[in-house]
């Protein structure tokens, strides 16, 4: 079955790109293909440097999953070490990096704790720190806020955006939430369903730290996104 059809886009350099599309449109498959968890039948994924030349065909990728997917039998810091070890980061850097990124997500004092003693939001933060600690060229996030309650999700979105902006982290976030896309994305790639193809690419007029949920500029952009998505759905219904 064809899931992805000529999907082609560039992420925003040093910024967050959102893949926005309805559930089941192949967003996660795309992310898995990019990370190598699923094989592409055709096509490739490249990280392109400033000079316009491909640096690697197998870029260093960090992954934040929909649920935390932590090793519950390992302490928080050992979960980060698991990723550092896998990515072959030299051991001398471990301590400093763990300090830096656990501090960033606000969990430094919980580094010796086991995950199951933490709340769902905190566990997701550990997952975020694990994705960041390997200092990836691109951070992939697969609907990382969708299983959290509204308050927790909102706070974590804010923090994630601030962290990514602070690090100038190139990131790719998959979501089906229009508001989330408008809030998190410097660039939004709207995907249509089955087989997924790129319907529209929009750049966010607001810089990351100036997006307020009740600001007119933000609401305007959110509406603009919503219209695109609704139009797309209408077209699909008609095509049926």
């Amino acid at each position, binding site marked *: 079955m064809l899931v992805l059809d000529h999907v082609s886009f560039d992420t925003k350099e040093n910024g967050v790109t959102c893949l926005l599309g309805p559930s089941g449109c192949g967003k996660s498959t795309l992310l898995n293909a990019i990370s190598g*968890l699923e094989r592409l039948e055709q096509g490739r994924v490249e990280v392109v440097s400033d000079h316009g030349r491909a640096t690697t065909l197998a870029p260093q*990728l960090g992954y934040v999953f929909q649920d935390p*997917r932590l090793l519950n*039998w390992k302490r928080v810091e050992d979960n980060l070490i*698991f990723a550092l070890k*896998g990515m072959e980061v030299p051991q001398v850097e471990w301590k400093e990096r763990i300090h830096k990124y656990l501090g960033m997500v606000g969990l430094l004092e919980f580094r010796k704790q086991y995950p199951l003693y933490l709340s769902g939001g905190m566990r997701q933060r550990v997952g975020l720190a694990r994705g960041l600690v390997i200092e990836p060229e691109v951070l992939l996030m697969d609907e990382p806020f969708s299983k959290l309650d509204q308050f927790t999700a909102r706070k974590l979105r804010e923090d994630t955006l601030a962290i990514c902006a602070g690090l100038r982290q190139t990131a790719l976030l998959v979501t089906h939430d229009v508001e989330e896309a408008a809030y998190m994305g410097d660039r939004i790639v709207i995907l249509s369903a089955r087989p997924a193809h790129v319907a529209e690419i929009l750049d966010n007029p607001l810089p990351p730290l100036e997006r307020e949920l009740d600001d007119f500029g933000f609401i305007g952009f959110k509406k603009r996104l919503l219209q695109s998505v609704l139009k797309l759905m209408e077209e699909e219904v008609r095509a049926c």
Partner: protein
Amino acid sequence: MAQQQKTLSVQAQAAAGAVSLGALSGAGGGRAREAAMEIGLRVGSIATLILIWWALGLFFPPTLIPRPWDTFAEVAEIVSTGNFFAEMGATLRRVAVGFAIAMVLSVPLGILMGTLRSLESFFEPPVILGLTMPGLIWAVLMIMFFGLNETSAYAAVAVTIFPMLAISIWQGTKSIDKDLIDMSKAFHARPWSKVVDVILPQLVSHILAAVRYGLGLAWKVVVVVEMFGFSNGVGYQVVRGFNVFSMKTVLAWTITFLVVMIVIEFGIIGWLERMVTQWRPRVEAWRR
């Protein structure tokens, strides 16, 4: 219909201790009382058993049902004369060696059966067959094959418990969380790290359950093997008691044996279990 005013007034106090705080900071006062209560119940259960034994003794002659205190005196004598440690040591060694052999073989086989469908189909029939085979028959077969020596005892114990261990590890492997395997792939974990950090920790509780059942089976088989004609071990001592028709001796050896088993079960294995599952919050909150 008159509209009813319904209000729910909530007054809650934080009762968080049971799940997380208790596990973080160790025992508080309530914890200690609960533990004392638990010990009390266990002691009470043993005391009840002894009471029933004593009551039965009122209706039968001491040759059939010896008095509890006479039997305990015999236990004291067995332990104080010193041959207890040699006999028990021989039995424990047979169980330990047989158990280790079975463990070393069943862990890899169980993991392979859980991961590869072809191996699962191939090994399922023999493993299930092995499970239904009575330990007594294994004991007979092994003694006939190896002769009356230590090897036959080790082999009998190993073969009897091997299928049980393999089955629980096989089933445990099948229930492993695939999402975590994906996660370990995304972070490029090496194969060794995948086994040690991701797969084995998920099997620990299955392995421990298997160890419990396995030990239970192993004790039963080893005693049978020893009865066949070994010249030491608890099984041999029980047969000796049987030959002179001394119920007291048979019971006394049985009791010492049981006590050692309980120490191993609750002490060593219980401790091991607490060690390897301290990452998991206690679920006592919903148990009453």
